């Protein structure tokens, strides 16, 4: 059995053991194959100055990564921060995924989750301090060896040097001594001009294992004696199981057991294929409820009614909108509509669980190990300290794996066996039973004076709130470990007052443009469709609405889309800067090849400002995006090439949504199922992408999501120029 999903070189040399300690916390200990195991709490001669850094007695530098690696490059980013202050080449740092632990809780959310493009920003100080305190201990140790003052010790790439002599000693050789010394709690950090790796280091730490098929994902976990499970799920929303007939299926080769559980009908067999085939032979009867008839049209009708009848929460109210609009020469009004979207991670949801008497091991590709632990505790009935979450490499997250539904299901199934069980979702289940990016409906109104100067802006949003769906599990993970699940459910608002949810309004309430009056209202309407966080969340729809409507206003004002924006961004120099950079590089305003048109958009999300310019043509009614020019300001850059990669990634992900993405419901069932009817952008449609990264010494902000919001409006704005059609809903469909 492989415990560790980590880099293969590490696997080969040692095994990672995750062991429970008396306090209910977890700690890591290493042992060499063939050697006797070092008891927990006594890692002889290893140096562990804080929760993230360890130097083993063999001299290996190990980073305990408390964020998950799902492609966004956090492994490399965190190693760069640590290595910078430690004075240690990041590419020599070995990385292990963190267990659940108090030290690893994300300060922004109070949870051990990876989301909101926060890994770099919230670890900017924390991990550099971890590195600096490690370095300080080695300096102390070297000074002691040489019997000199610490000020005479210099460090570089894992070696201490004695100033003014040729004496040197590696960190590895100092580990035993350093382990006996104490680390300073708030060590001094470098200034930006001293950086050796930050802003320069590019090689991905996980690039190699992932180019040789060696990275270990959730779906690859294989404890001995493994059984495979598939689930038969309610075909329509809100339906529950009445009964089922599994007689024929039960007799099929390899089938272990077929039984009903809270998640559906579990089919467990010796192999995945046997389970899948047997599932096809099970006949089930379902009881429906009022949700089971829901269609997409009804969802939008509910939204429209909400906007018609309710004023909603006023989330921004600057100036006197009515007064300002009363003086307008022309009023511009528009309605925008955005669909539900599935995450479609390449690795379908899966989870492997092994429940023994007092122990439950969970291997999962999860963005929230502590929520997974809570969910496993609730489903297994075991206590918190008995649950062991093993985080793996993740085949795409995008917010999907913040929800722990698949962990819950796998535990419910594995409870019935004393062997490990792996649950694997099919692509069809992954598409039909996702927790979706919410659909939304927007009404916009703005007034222009007779010179075309915009006066007032009114944006009304009908959408549900993601946290309402998320709080049940998240609050359990936030509550103390002894809190009974029943009480957690009772107080699931817990999460909402700790973490206010801006998912419906982000990117709308913070409109940067200068209008004399701005009002943004949110009418909360929840049709009951399961929803979750999805790459860039609210920014993914509000960015489209705001930046498309701004283009409409520019057009009505008879002004160029770029200068119209620049004039209204006087107080937002970073927005102006990225717009100008992208425009200059793309040749905004200059002629393009015949039939090609430019469109632009700028949007700030998660602290990062991104402008994008799309070059688009329409060929035989088909939309083609030829080139995207992107300028990004994310503060201090840690790994320049990863910033570029994340912009490329956000743009392509956003283009899939702009051109194809739509989940629809008919009679309570999702109509899409696999990549033929929920298509992804492919390489033959993928544009050339050029990224300009702004140099900055401001604190760094995230890059995993901010590349996405500007692309759909940039393309829609270009299409307007190409065809005269203003497309106000996604996906973009020409008449």
């Amino acid at each position: 059995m492989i415990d560790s999903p980590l880099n293969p070189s590490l696997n080969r040399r040692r095994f990672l053991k995750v062991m429970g300690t008396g306090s209910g916390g977890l700690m890591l200990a290493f042992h060499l194959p063939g050697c006797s195991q070092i008891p927990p709490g006594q890692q002889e001669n290893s140096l562990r100055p804080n929760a993230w850094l360890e130097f083993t007695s063999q001299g290996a530098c190990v980073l305990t990564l408390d964020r998950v690696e799902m492609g966004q490059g956090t492994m490399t980013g965190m190693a760069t921060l640590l290595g910078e202050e430690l004075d240690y080449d990041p590419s020599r740092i070995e990385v292990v995924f963190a267990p659940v632990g108090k030290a690893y809780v994300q300060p922004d959310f109070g949870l051990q989750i990876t989301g909101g493009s926060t890994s770099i920003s919230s670890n900017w100080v924390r991990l550099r301090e971890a590195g600096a305190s490690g370095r300080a201990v080695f300096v102390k140790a070297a000074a002691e060896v040489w019997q000199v003052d610490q000020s005479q010790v210099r460090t570089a790439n894992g070696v201490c040097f004695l100033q003014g002599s040729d004496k040197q000693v590696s960190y590895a050789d100092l580990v035993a001594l350093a382990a006996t010394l104490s680390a300073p709690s708030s060590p001094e950090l470098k200034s930006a001009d001293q950086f050796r790796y930050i802003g320069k280091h590019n090689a991905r730490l996980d690039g190699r294992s992932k180019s040789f098929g060696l990275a270990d994902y959730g779906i690859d976990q294989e404890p001995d004696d493994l059984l495979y499970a598939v689930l038969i799920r309610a075909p329509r929303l809100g339906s529950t199981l009445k009964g089922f007939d599994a007689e024929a299926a039960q007799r099929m080769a390899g089938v272990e057991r077929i039984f009903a559980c809270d998640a559906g009908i579990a089919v467990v067999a010796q192999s995945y294929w046997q389970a899948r085939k047997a599932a096809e032979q099970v006949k089930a009867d379902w009881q429906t409820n009022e949700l089971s008839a829901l269609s997409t049209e009804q969802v939008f009708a509910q939204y429209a009614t909400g906007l018609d009848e309710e004023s909603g929460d006023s989330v921004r109210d600057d100036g006197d909108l009515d007064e300002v609009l009363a003086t307008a020469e022309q009023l511009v009004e528009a309605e925008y509509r955005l669909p539900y979207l599935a995450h479609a991670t390449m690795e379908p949801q899966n989870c492997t669980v092994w429940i023994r008497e007092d122990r439950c091991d969970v291997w999962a590709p999860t963005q929230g190990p502590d929520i997974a632990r809570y969910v496993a505790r609730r489903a297994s009935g075991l206590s918190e300290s008995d649950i062991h979450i093993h985080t793996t490499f993740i085949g795409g997250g995008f917010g999907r794996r913040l929800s722990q539904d698949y962990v819950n299901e796998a535990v419910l199934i594995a409870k019935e066996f004393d062997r490990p069980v792996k649950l694997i979702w099919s692509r069809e289940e992954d598409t039909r039973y996702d927790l979706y990016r919410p659909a939304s409906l927007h009404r916009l109104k703005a007034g222009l004076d007779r010179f075309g100067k915009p006066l007032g802006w009114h944006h009304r949003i009908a959408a549900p709130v993601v946290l309402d769906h998320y709080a049940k599990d998240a609050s359990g993970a936030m509550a103390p470990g002894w809190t009974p699940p029943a009480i957690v459910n009772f107080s699931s608002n817990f999460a909402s007052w700790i973490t206010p949810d801006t998912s419906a309004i982000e990117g709308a309430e913070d409109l940067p443009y200068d209008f004399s009056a701005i009002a943004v209202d949110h009418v909360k309407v929840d049709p009951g469709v399961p929803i979750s966080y999805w790459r860039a969340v609210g920014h993914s729809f509000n960015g489209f609405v705001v930046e498309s409507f701004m283009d409409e206003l520019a057009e009505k004002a008879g002004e160029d889309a770029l200068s119209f924006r620049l004039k209204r961004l006087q107080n937002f120099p970073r927005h102006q800067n990225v717009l100008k950079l992208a425009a200059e590089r793309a040749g905004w305003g200059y002629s393009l090849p015949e039939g090609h048109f430019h469109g632009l958009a700028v949007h700030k999300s998660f602290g990062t400002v991104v402008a994008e310019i799309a070059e688009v043509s329409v060929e035989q009614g088909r939309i083609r995006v030829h080139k995207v020019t992107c300028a990004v300001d994310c503060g201090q850059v840690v790994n320049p090439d990863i910033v570029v990669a994340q912009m490329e990634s956000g743009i392509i992900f956003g283009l899939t949504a702009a051109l194809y993405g739509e989940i629809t419901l008919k009679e309570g069932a999702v109509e899409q199922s696999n990549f033929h009817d929920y298509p992804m952008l492919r390489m033959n449609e993928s544009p050339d992408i050029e990224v300009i990264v702004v140099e900055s010494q401001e604190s760094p902000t995230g890059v995993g999501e901010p590349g996405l919001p500007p692309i759909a409006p940039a393309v829609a704005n270009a299409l307007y120029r190409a065809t005269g059609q203003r497309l106000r809903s996604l996906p973009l469909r020409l008449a």
Partner: protein
Amino acid sequence: MVTFTLNGIVHSLDVPDDTPLLWVIRDELKLKGTKFGCGMGLCGACTVHLNGQAIRSCITPVATINGQRLMTIEGLGTPEQPHPLQKAWVQHSVPQCGYCQSGQLMSASALLAANPHPTEAQIREAMSGNVCRCGTYPRILKAIQTVTNAMTGEEETL
């Protein structure tokens, strides 16, 4: 009983005839580099070589490969002895989540084996069966071009 050669090793297995090759590779032979993405031949995550050609193992019943020669990502190269494409992949930091990349590499290597000097359009076309949700296409293109350019360079100096 089905017999085939995989990465140079002969295997004889007793599995139901209709089992997709993908699950035989992953769960019987325990080679986890080949991935499950869609099960319908739509995403390319499960791409392997059958007698040198790229095929989708998720829709290939194991019985149909009796007596044939297969290669998976584990046979393409190792960190010690990488395929030129794997070197280029690392050099360009192609992988993000990495889940699609075994399939991408198997498609790319089959392409270059059949056509060592594809045009950009031919690369895009040949690779369009492989979905990458993380959007690594620009880098895949560059990495393949690095290899084809290097091969051109070699020929020129010969």
